[in-house]
């Protein structure tokens, strides 16, 4: 089972790790990915990143992605937390944890989850630059290719 949350508040990776593994001796490995806000885009200083989402759809889309991962690998649990709202440079945006008996499944599922999340969950990022400019981030072909390789 995956714990899935969309929230404005920061998350505590250690607390999420502890919650996932509490009372479990069957887990042999946990994959972890944390996405954070880069402080510049091609050298242009970023002031903040605003994340918008489609509340009625987001958790359903994340649950569908988690179910796909559980169908492909033998997982013993996992966590997906995605933040929304205004985030400053270096702030954590997204957490993916995937637990399995062995590392291959844990690491592969973690990579799969973040690749699919980037192309199949209804989030949009707007960059606000230190020079006052604002830009909606455009989807990257490289992200589509990363999602398609699974």
């Amino acid at each position, binding site marked *: 089972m995956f714990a899935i949350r969309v929230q404005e508040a920061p998350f505590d990776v250690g607390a999420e790790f502890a919650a996932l593994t509490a009372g479990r001796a069957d887990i042999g490995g946990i994959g972890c990915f944390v996405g954070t806000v880069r402080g510049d885009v091609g050298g242009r200083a970023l002031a903040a990143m605003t994340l918008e989402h489609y509340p009625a759809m987001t958790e359903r889309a994340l649950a569908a992605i988690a179910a796909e991962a559980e169908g492909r690998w033998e997982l013993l649990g996992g966590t997906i937390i995605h933040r929304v709202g205004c985030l400053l440079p270096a702030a954590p945006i997204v957490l993916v944890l995937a637990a399995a008996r062995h590392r291959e499944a844990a690491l592969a599922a973690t990579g799969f989850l973040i690749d699919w999340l980037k192309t*199949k969950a209804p989030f949009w990022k707007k960059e606000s630059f230190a020079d006052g400019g604002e830009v909606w981030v455009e989807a990257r072909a490289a992200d589509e290719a990363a999602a398609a390789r699974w």
Partner: protein
Amino acid sequence: MSGFRVHLLYFAWLRERIGCGEEEIEVPAEIRTLGALSAWLAARGPGYASAFAAGKSVRAAINQSFAGPEAAIGPGDEVAFFPPVTGG
């Protein structure tokens, strides 16, 4: 022939160009697909024209599931329009 009502949602730059995040509108009965709906919306005013001018870079969902231009729409549907997603 009477039309039907749908609940529309717009996200990211579509919301900014159209000037609202959601609205309930009456759609003509002959509008049966998502593609026909976006073409009809594009003719509603300059903000809509600007939002839908990008053509294929607009994505959509019907009742919270991703859907393509051929997908059927009907009375009471929640239809969302948005740019390609950029989360993660």
